[in-house]
């Protein structure tokens, strides 16, 4: 079986930073597995600025931030990148199976860093009653459609949740000529950065309804409207406050869930509520030699923090390989 010193699962900003840090700390053999056709992870679709203010003291777009690391990885001989490579199995003794077009590969790793990022919370998980028409998207999917494919989802949108992705997409859709009718937030304040409320909503005259929730989605085949109501401190509907917003698109931006299904498969302990690794120290997992970093560890607001966190994980893996701890 093919033996590798370190295998990093995920080639987004977390995985790249971890691999680079491990390499800088002396690890000579690193396999970086990425399931997409390019490195960069979610940054590839985050075409807006706001990245790198801490790390590079510059304001970069997502792709520019990613590109700095992609270029560094390309220059690092100890890192081998395998694209379109999807890990299907991870065992507790760090045997990894991954699929890529034309091959099923098996690797025995001496140490593993999981940089598998997050997925979005969907309409089904909230849950929102009503019909099941087309036109309802997790905000990140809408972002991918618009920014990477040039597909405009609809004409009029309502955004559920004032997380950063929702706010960013409000602006993006407004710029693309869609009418963004409202952002609906169940909490008393916006979940996203205050500056995003300013430059994404205020700039475009998009109303933000705090302490409100969507009580129904309607539409037979495609979304036709949403029914909104004010909520009390217990998030229950206040009677007599319902109103309707006609729209053909609904974006859901109500939080991210760390992806740790591989970690669970390997038998490591994962917190059932937060879906994050349970361990004595951040970046460690309950399996010796297996580490986690980035959004898979904890959902970060800034990619600069992800980079810093992932470098620690890379150093930990290097130390483990040297000293066995």
């Amino acid at each position, binding site marked *: 079986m093919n033996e590798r010193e370190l295998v990093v699962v995920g080639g987004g900003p977390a995985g790249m930073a971890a691999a680079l840090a491990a390499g800088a700390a002396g690890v000579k053999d690193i396999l970086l597995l990425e399931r997409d056709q390019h490195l960069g992870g979610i940054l590839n679709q985050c*075409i807006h600025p706001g990245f790198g203010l801490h790390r590079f003291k510059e304001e970069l*777009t997502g*792709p*520019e931030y990613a590109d700095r690391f992609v270029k560094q990885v390309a220059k690092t001989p100890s890192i081998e990148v395998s694209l379109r490579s999807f890990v299907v199995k991870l065992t507790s003794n760090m045997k990894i199976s991954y699929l890529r077009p034309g091959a099923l590969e098996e690797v025995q790793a001496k140490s593993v860093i999981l940089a598998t990022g997050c997925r979005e919370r969907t309409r089904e998980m909230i849950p929102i009653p009503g019909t099941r028409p087309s036109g309802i998207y997790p905000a990140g999917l809408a972002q991918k459609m618009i920014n990477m494919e040039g597909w405009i989802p609809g004409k009029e949108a309502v955004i559920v949740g004032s997380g950063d992705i929702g706010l960013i997409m409000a602006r993006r859709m407004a710029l693309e000529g869609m009418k963004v009718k409202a952002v609906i937030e169940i909490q008393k304040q916006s979940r996203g*950065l205050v*500056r995003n409320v300013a430059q994404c909503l205020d*700039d475009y005259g998009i109303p933000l309804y705090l302490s409100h929730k969507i009580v129904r989605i309607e539409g037979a085949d495609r979304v036709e409207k949403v029914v909104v109501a004010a909520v009390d401190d217990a998030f229950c509907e206040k009677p007599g406050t319902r109103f309707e917003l006609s729209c053909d698109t609904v974006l859901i931006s109500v939080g991210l869930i760390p992806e740790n299904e591989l970690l669970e498969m390997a038998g490591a302990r994962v917190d059932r509520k937060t879906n994050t690794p349970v361990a004595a120290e951040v970046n460690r997992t309950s399996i010796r030699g297996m580490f986690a970093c980035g959004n898979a560890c904890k959902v970060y607001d800034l990619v600069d923090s992800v980079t810093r966190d992932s470098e620690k994980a890379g150093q930990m893996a290097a130390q483990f390989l040297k000293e066995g701890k």
Partner: protein
Amino acid sequence: MSRKLICIECPQGCSLEVALEGNKVVSVTGNTCPRGDKYARSEIENPVRTFTSSVLAEELDIKMLPVRTSGPIPKAGLLPAMREVKKILVSAPVETGAVLAENFMGTGVNLVACRPAKKPDNR
């Protein structure tokens, strides 16, 4: 007269209070760094934003190329900028930072690529 603003220069998002006389800024308070002062003055007198979007590519390894202006442009120019970029089609490989349009729309800044785009077989 005074106006309240949220500074967008960095993720802190300081709440700024700007004292005005007519359209001129008299003083700025609430900022925790000089960038906030600069932002408040610019935002009142000549609001600017960094413009980002994506342009169509053909025969390259990505379908849409993310682009940005190399510096902020007047806020009122954002929608015209959106219309302008729709006319751009990138068909030759580019590197990050490549200039796609010099002095974009007469703003004095360039429109540049945010990532490389290569020929499909050249990964």
